[in-house]
């Protein structure tokens, strides 16, 4: 059973805070749920399905369902794939709505890594029971060096340069200047990026995303419910999800799971990369964007460096406007999980409600892609394609 056209996104909310010292984690989830439902014109009692990931405190979805008083839930899902979880949730909610399991699905993400660090709380530590842990952790893998090795290999195989990667950050900064909530609003140049301190060769500080608190939420509904609401509805056209890992030691760091999640989403939506007017692409690091754009088919494998250069990702300038909210590189990466905000900006673009300076004209079809985990070892990839009513 397909999902194309069988569900709609009718409510979204991005928490404006970027440091949540005065808020608890459950409180953030609830504020986000309230914001997303208000945007949709629905109440909490309309919610009959709840989706969350590992950031939600408690036993899967149960504790947050209790905290928020969601009394009519008959379908729940706490699939955890790191930062891409929320795009997986959009896919799963679309499937559940299409199958008649629910009519109003709420998805929330919240995090407070900035506040937790200030309060001296221990950092989240990788699961020692994971089978890879004994053989990898002794060598000091961290988020940055595990993405850096992908960039290093991509440069080796395809001649990609630090300057080309820098263009991704430059484009994000051009967009972030118009977002009053963005963590970083200054426009930066290629020189600024390549001259920023080296964190893990070849990634510089400005190749890395921000760390922020906050979160976001989505309300998805059946076509019947969507028609009863006043809000501009955004149709879910297709979605795909895929794991990628080290394949028993056959390591290839030059591509991501988007190689599989993307084609599934395009096939279901019945569109091609050429039809996409706007793309939200997970940008934990600049290299994440570059490999993903290749894997999704926006350019050939190995040509990502050329594709992202010279402002090609800047709205109003280039051929593929991306991350017009400033993305994780400049705007927001709440709880170190960027998939939610990717969907939110894609919805704004299809609604025509992005900032006027970055709104893409006639944005009838948009894409959002998430990469959860580590590009340099194992990840969950997820792609969703959204459209307006005519799409």
């Amino acid at each position, binding site marked *: 059973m397909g999902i194309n056209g069988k569900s709609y996104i009718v409510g979204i909310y991005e928490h404006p805070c970027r440091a949540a010292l005065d808020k608890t984690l459950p409180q953030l989830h609830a504020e986000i749920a309230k914001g997303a439902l208000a945007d949709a014109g629905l109440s909490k009692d309309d919610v009959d399905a709840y989706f969350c990931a590992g950031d939600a405190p408690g036993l899967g979805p149960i504790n947050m369902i209790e905290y928020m008083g969601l009394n009519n839930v008959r379908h729940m899902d706490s699939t955890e794939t790191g930062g891409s979880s929320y795009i997986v949730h959009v896919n799963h909610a679309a499937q559940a709505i299409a199958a008649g399991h629910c009519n109003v699905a709420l998805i929330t993400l919240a995090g407070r890594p900035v506040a937790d660090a200030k309060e001296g709380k221990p950092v989240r530590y990788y699961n*020692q029971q994971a089978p*890879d842990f*004994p053989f990898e*952790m*002794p060598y000091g893998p961290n988020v940055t*060096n595990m993405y850096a*090795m992908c960039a290093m290999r991509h440069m080796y195989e395809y001649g990609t340069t630090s300057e080309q990667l820098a263009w991704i950050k430059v484009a994000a900064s051009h967009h972030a200047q118009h977002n009053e909530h963005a963590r970083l609003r200054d426009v930066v140049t290629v020189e600024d990026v390549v001259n920023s301190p080296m964190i893990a*060769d070849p990634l510089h500080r400005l190749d890395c995303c921000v760390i922020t608190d906050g979160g976001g939420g989505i309300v998805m509904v059946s076509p019947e419910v969507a028609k009863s609401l006043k809000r501009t509805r955004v149709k879910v056209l297709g979605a795909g999800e895929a794991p990628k890992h080290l394949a*028993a030691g056959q390591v290839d760091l030059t591509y991501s799971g988007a190689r599989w999640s993307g084609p599934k989403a395009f096939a279901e939506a019945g569109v091609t990369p050429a039809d996409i007017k706007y793309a939200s692409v997970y940008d934990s690091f600049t290299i994440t964007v570059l490999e993903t754009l290749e894997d999704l088919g926006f350019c050939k494998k190995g040509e990502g460096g050329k594709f992202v250069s010279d402002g090609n990702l800047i709205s109003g300038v280039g051929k593929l406007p991306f991350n017009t909210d400033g993305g994780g590189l400049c705007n927001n990466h709440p709880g170190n999980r960027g998939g939610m905000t990717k969907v939110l900006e894609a919805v704004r673009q299809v609604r025509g409600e992005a900032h006027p300076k970055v709104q893409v004209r006639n944005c009838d079809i948009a894409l959002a892609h998430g990469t959860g985990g580590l590009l340099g070892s194992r990840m969950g990839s997820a792609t969703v394609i959204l459209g307006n009513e005519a799409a």
Partner: protein
Amino acid sequence: MNTDQKNKINLVVNSESKPYWEGAAKGQLLIRACNACCKAHHYPRTICPHCFSDDTAFVEASGNGVIYSYSVTRQAKPPYVIAYVELDEGVSMLTNIVGCEIDKIRIGQKVRVEFSEAGDGYALPVFTPA
């Protein structure tokens, strides 16, 4: 995953990994191979991830390989080099490159295994330019 400092080795010795660490303590780099499909894999598992046979065993690797990719974690004190080394046996493993000038490390460089002290009599396989 949030370790910026590589100052503590977290060896996890369990029933699946114990022979691997015992081998390293004796100066042997072990990889797991399957007697049914004849393919090697890494990290080692009891059930073969290629064919799902349970007829797997540790075998000693040559200890030779080439650097597939690497990165220098510059903010750590001291900076360290993380890498994937592709072993001559055809599987790649996450490791550290040690005992050389950090800025001269290159992808494709030939390396060989050596063992660094990991506490409790155990040792950690790391690689150095051949």
